[in-house]
């Protein structure tokens, strides 16, 4: 009978103690600051030299200002260009590699080696990676030296003074840092597909191309959605690479200035009003994307464990 009595003890309230630290810290370090960010976006508050201007309530003036004076739409467009030009080749290459790696008829050898190598750049500090590219592609750097010696260029290419090259370098770095990660995610998705589906298709006379487009692709859709949205949210946060590569200027002529670089500029100079307006805009976009991701992830999710 002791057992029944024990069962009767209600342990559920203990849950509150276990989740309390998370919620206290999240509220203090993220929710209250987020509210304060929204609040500050309505005030004019900046520094000129040592004098502090404001905070004065200005309504939505800061939002008007970031569009008229600062041309935030240009930075948003830069961010979008830099993200898309890395994401499209990234998803194409990753899908190809994932299919190759998981195909038993290809029987690729050295998979572990290739996976190890292509995932490696993901762990490299973005700041040092950008600094490395800056050194490699500087006017007198190793890449120009190799190009000149090989006769591929007559004069050193001024990579970082040209819009196309600067953007290409940023996209190339982001591509290198993320395609290994995406490959591994897509691969786990392909591995999760029931083998008997491919068997059945084969018996019915489907070609590999047909089974790829009619089985693999549709069943990979949830993983695709996940990769797409997380990559987009990551793309909106793009900062370290262009910041270090262009020394925070978004050079040449602000064509590689991203939204978060712009936010960082105002935070560093303590122009809290404009920084607040930028934050609110970035929050709106990432928040909407997060909701889409949440719905996609939760549609078939259950809190119950497989061990119970």
């Amino acid at each position, binding site marked *: 009978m002791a057992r029944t009595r024990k069962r009767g003890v209600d*342990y559920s309230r203990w849950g509150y*103690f*276990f*989740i309390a630290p*998370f*919620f206290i*810290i*999240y509220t203090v*370090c*993220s929710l*209250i*600051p987020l509210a*304060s*960010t929204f*609040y500050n976006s309505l005030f004019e508050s900046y520094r000129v030299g040592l004098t502090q201007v404001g905070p004065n309530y200005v309504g939505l003036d800061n939002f008007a200002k970031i569009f008229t004076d600062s041309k935030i739409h240009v930075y948003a467009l830069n961010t979008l260009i830099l993200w898309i030009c890395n994401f499209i080749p990234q998803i194409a290459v990753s899908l*190809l*590699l994932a299919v190759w790696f*998981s*195909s038993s*008829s290809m029987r*690729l050898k050295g998979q572990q*080696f290739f*996976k*190890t190598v292509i995932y490696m*750049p993901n*762990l*490299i500090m*973005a*700041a*040092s990676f950008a*600094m*490395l590219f800056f050194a490699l592609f*500087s006017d007198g750097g190793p*890449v120009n*030296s190799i190009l000149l010696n090989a006769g591929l260029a007559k004069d050193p290419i001024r990579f970082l003074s040209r819009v196309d090259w600067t953007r290409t370098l940023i996209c190339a770095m982001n591509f290198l840092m993320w395609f290994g990660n995406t490959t*591994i*995610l897509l691969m786990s998705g392909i*591995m*999760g597909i*029931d*083998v008997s589906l*491919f068997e059945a298709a*084969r018996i019915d006379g489907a070609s*590999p191309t047909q*089974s790829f487009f009619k089985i693999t692709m549709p069943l990979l859709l*949830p*993983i695709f959605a996940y990769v797409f949205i997380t990559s987009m949210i990551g793309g909106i946060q793009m*900062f370290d690479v262009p910041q270090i590569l262009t020394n925070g200027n978004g050079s040449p002529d602000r064509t590689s200035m991203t939204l*978060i670089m712009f936010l*960082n500029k105002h*935070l560093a100079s303590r122009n*809290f009003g404009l920084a607040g307006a930028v*934050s609110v805009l*970035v929050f709106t976009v*990432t928040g909407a994307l997060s909701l889409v991701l949440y719905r*996609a992830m*939760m549609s078939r999710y259950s809190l119950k*464990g*497989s*061990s119970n």
Partner: protein
Amino acid sequence: MSTIATIERPRFLVGWRILSYAFLIFLSALCIFPFLILIINATRMNSDIQKGFSIIPGSAFMQNLSGLLKDPNIPVVRALANSVLISTCCAALTTYFSSMTAYGIYMYRFKGRNFAFNFIMIVMMVPTQVSALGFIKMIIDASLLDSFLPLIIPAIASPIVFFFMLEYMKSVLPFEIVESSRIDGAHEFRTFNSIVMPILSPAIAVQAIFSFVTNWNNYFLPALLLNSKEKRTIPIIIAQLRSADYLKFDMGKVYIMICIAIVPLVIIYLLLSRFIIRGVTMGSVKG
């Protein structure tokens, strides 16, 4: 193993295999090439580097290293110590408290449990940058600028690590173990610390590595919160090298500094790569 196509078409496949190997080798070369130049140039003298690139390593590695360590403007050793301290604390806090949160939601049927879970899932992807302004203001008001605490404490609330630990718990932690511990009269927190945590240790190890790397590489907030020279972390020092236009002074130093930021992580990664790569997919959606 799943199969894309099991039909044997030898000739067709040979072509594909050659093509795929060529492409994989090309991509691997792209990934390795920048680091190869980095390591070669870190061993060459500034004057040699300025003359042009050569594939043959030099012998000035120690000279470059001691030059960097002696430079009073670049406190490398201090920055290394700071980065290790912050990253270690974050890794410890984030894994312990995320496990604790996940356990609370997984094990107890309290009122508001679903709300708590859904809340964490919704905020999972909201980037820290959007609340950075309010956070920085709060830190200024609390006179905690230039302290490591604002960089370490938020690690307690990490939705992504929480979700990862929850998924892991679902696959390895049966309710029976916890119940038998209760019958033995163990306190709830004691059960968590001495029975649940050891079961979770493989997942904790993976997440500790990821958390360490993330914080080691973190640049945005530290650069805004840390001012004084002795509080700088490695990414801030790298940014400082960039803005001071060190290329004109001593390239050897620049390359060796980048080496210091990258090489320790690459070594850890190569030792644990199987483990890490397996960990990448564990917390994401199941296709």
